């Protein structure tokens, strides 16, 4: 159904475009081929209802547009994970949930051909037109292996060609074949299904293709001797992870500050030039502020994905996972989850996106459920404020200060909570299906192409801005409206006895009488046992847009001179009503409850939005928000009781 033959340009839209799907095991060069065929025309989405990313793109050949889909990498069509179910469903014509491709491109790494034929045997069972693309034949030759490509093609009975990445000629030969999968040769008889017969078939095919196994890669062996060494390997691992963390934490920070400042400047310009204070405030804080709060994540995402795709492309990621597997197994996860959890200490948003490297959907979910509990950088200002309120800065034991110790405790608490949550969720996931056997290929060290690194960064940033940014922006605008409406004019303010010249007093009055305050009062019964009054509740509600907003909102509520550093004003706050009326609001037990609440609660729209995007449904963000809220509430209550009993 090549649209190239269609003389009427307008009709091409009506014709169904030829669909090709890429099938292959991880590390088989499948994604490199996908990138080479589609480039920037790729789109990322989700398969309906599952946590599996879907990559699809258009390839233009002779003016005709083909749809190419990059199916999840898998070692077998006998599905034991949701990702592999996707591959199977995609190849099953009787399945209507996903469109069946017209032809399959199966990438086979020639250095692992013996194993890869097992997958090919299963793919040929589907009876869809198949074209075999042999990859890494340059590496096979370098490692003294050999293969007769033409003889392999005869033995397989399907078009078979070697495509070495970077060789335009190879790719051109492949592109010529693509438009018409119906014309591809089919095997007279598909390979057998019974394992012993499959083995006999693949041995015979390999013998006919005069295949000789490559020698062990000398370079890889030498590097592994260091990188997997009990001592040196561990040192390198910690150094790599430390620099990864440092880069997303410190290198990104100044860029993020500049983005913040820039949008702050835009906002102040807007406020200066727009006479209506409400409109000005809306444009400045809700719109520019909202866009700013989306873009502020970008430096972290770009940097993290540059590093992740480099480490993945080089082959270090599986080594790191190999070193950490035993530790992560304690949390029911596998080694690869470590990077995602570590990244979450900077920010859960890139951390959750980093779970894409996990091959099993179940591990991805468990990691995502735990990741937001890691102490992220947005919790830091909240912790600094609250710890400053409750813990005496002069209390110290030798070099160890009580404030620092509390902060350290909060970080450790977050990490433990994250691991525990991941463990619980992987247990829950396990009850729904058989235990997946753990296996991880150790690919030879290879030099990743700049193109594939760039495309992976581009893809991550693009989907974040498009899909996640929208949600963050909407929530920011909604929260702004909540805290700034109904609008007050100066006459009303004067009637209420507010000095309209005093900006602090005005903003305090506005927020105290906003819909948000009404919400804060409305939820008072919920937070009463934790010792929060409506003012803290307003802060908690506002912090939904981002945790650090809590500090400024609380400052506004307490009419602090400097809303960014409201410690002094907060210390003076008294409980307004109820049995504790007149007592200081921020007592030790209440601050402890607040700290613990922020440790556990999912007070972050961006995290919720990115979770929505990565899992493909609202179900998992809803579960995460609910379980973390309940957990936060219960733990905060416990903290209040325990600290109350101690003091």
């Amino acid at each position, binding site marked *: 159904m090549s649209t190239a033959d269609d003389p009427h340009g307008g009709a091409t839209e009506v014709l169904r475009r030829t669909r090709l799907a890429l099938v292959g095991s991880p590390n088989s060069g499948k994604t490199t081929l996908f990138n080479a065929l589609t480039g920037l025309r790729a789109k990322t989405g989700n398969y309906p209802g599952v946590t599996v990313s879907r990559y699809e793109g258009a390839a233009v050949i002779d003016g005709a547009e083909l749809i190419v889909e990059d199916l999840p990498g898998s070692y077998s069509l006998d599905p034991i994970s949701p990702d592999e179910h996707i591959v199977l469903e995609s190849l099953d014509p009787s399945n209507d949930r996903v469109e069946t491709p017209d032809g399959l491109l199966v990438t086979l790494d020639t250095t692992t051909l*013996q194993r890869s034929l097992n997958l090919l045997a299963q793919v040929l069972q589907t009876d869809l037109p198949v074209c075999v693309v042999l990859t890494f034949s340059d590496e096979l030759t370098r490692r003294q292996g050999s293969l007769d490509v033409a003889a392999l093609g*005869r*033995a397989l*009975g399907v078009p078979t060609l070697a495509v070495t990445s970077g060789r335009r000629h190879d790719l051109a030969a492949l592109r010529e074949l693509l438009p018409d999968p119906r014309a591809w040769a089919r*095997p*007279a*008889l*598909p*390979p*057998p299904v019974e394992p*012993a*017969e499959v*083995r*006999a*078939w693949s*041995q*015979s*095919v*390999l*013998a*006919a293709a005069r295949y000789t196994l490559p020698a062990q890669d000398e370079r890889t062996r030498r590097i592994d001797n260091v990188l997997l060494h009990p001592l040196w390997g561990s040192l390198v691992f910690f150094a790599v992870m430390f620099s990864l963390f440092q880069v997303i934490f410190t290198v990104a920070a100044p860029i993020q500050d500049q983005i913040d400042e820039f949008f702050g400047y835009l906002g102040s310009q807007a406020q200066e030039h727009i006479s209506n204070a409400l409109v000005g405030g809306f444009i400045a804080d809700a719109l520019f502020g909202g866009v700013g709060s989306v873009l502020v994540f970008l430096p972290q995402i770009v940097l993290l994905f540059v590093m992740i795709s480099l480490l993945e492309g080089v082959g270090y990621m599986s080594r790191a996972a190999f070193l950490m597997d035993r530790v992560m197994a304690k949390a029911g996860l596998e080694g690869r989850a470590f990077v995602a959890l570590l990244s979450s200490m900077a920010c859960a948003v890139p951390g959750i996106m980093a779970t894409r490297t996990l091959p099993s959907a179940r591990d991805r979910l468990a990691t995502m459920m735990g990741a937001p509990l890691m102490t992220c950088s947005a919790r830091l200002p909240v912790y600094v404020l609250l710890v400053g309120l409750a813990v005496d800065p002069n209390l110290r034991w030798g070099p160890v200060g009580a404030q620092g110790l509390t902060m350290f405790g909060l970080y450790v608490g977050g990490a433990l909570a994250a691991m525990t949550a991941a463990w619980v969720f992987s247990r829950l996931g396990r009850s729904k299906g058989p235990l997946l056997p753990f296996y991880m290929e150790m690919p030879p060290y290879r030099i990743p192409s700049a193109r594939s690194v760039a495309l992976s960064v581009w893809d991550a940033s693009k989907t974040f801005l498009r899909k996640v940014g929208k949600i963050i922006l909407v929530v920011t605008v909604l929260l702004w409206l909540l805290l700034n409406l109904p609008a007050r004019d100066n006459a009303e303010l004067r009637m209420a006895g507010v000095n309209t010249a005093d900006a602090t007093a005005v903003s305090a009055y506005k927020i105290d009488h906003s819909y948000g305050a009404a919400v804060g009062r409305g939820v008072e019964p919920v937070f009463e046992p934790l010792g929060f009054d409506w003012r803290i509740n307003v802060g908690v509600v506002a912090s939904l847009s981002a945790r650090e907003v809590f500090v400024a909102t609380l400052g506004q509520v307490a009419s602090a001179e400097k809303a960014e550093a409201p410690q002094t004003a907060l210390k003076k706050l008294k409980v307004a009503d109820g049995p504790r009326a007149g007592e200081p609001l921020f007592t030790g037990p209440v601050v402890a409850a607040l700290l613990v609440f922020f440790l556990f609660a999912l007070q972050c729209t961006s995290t919720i939005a990115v979770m929505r995007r990565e899992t493909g449904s609202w179900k998992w963000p809803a579960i995460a928000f609910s379980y973390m809220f309940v957990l936060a509430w219960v733990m905060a209550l416990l903290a209040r009781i325990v600290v109350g009993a101690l003091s």
Partner: protein
Amino acid sequence: MVANRQPGDALVPVHPEAVTGDARALRWRTPVAVLAFVGAVEAAPDDLGRLMTDGTLESLSVEPDAVLARLGAGRDWRTEGPRFRTAVQAALGRPDGWTPGIGAGTGDDALRMAVEQVIAGEVGDYVRSHGGEISLVSVTDGHVEVNLSGACSHCPASEMTLTQRVDVAVRRLYPELRGLRAAPNVGAPTAARRLLGMAATRGR
């Protein structure tokens, strides 16, 4: 991989390859010389034998590295293939249960077939693509003589490498090959062509 397998360990490695222009025939590639003969099969053991007698198979013959099977009229490989595969693998595990048919042979016959296969195959294609020609002269007691002629026949070096290539290819199909050489100066046409070739070289 195939070399260090012991008989009885696992199934005999086989895979089918299409035969150009004949949809009912499939060439089932096997390890070299699993059977002691080449040519038509009169009877085969067990289920394969039944496939021959019940008309599923029209004919069955043995090649140095394959079993060539042709289905009876109205049958197709998609349906019969799985049963045939299991049957032929089982039968190949019992090489002494096979009965050679009329015209089938052993030893030198297998060697002759191997040489013909090589000439018809890749190596022959290579020679022909260079304007040359290669033909079998004789097979005697494990020794083979071939005749190389055509564009490159005047070049002794190319004759050497060519003979070597043929030797390697034939040995792959018939490991007991005892010797292979190019026939010296056989027949008038070749000699004449060689002279012509030399003359042409001198003329330049």
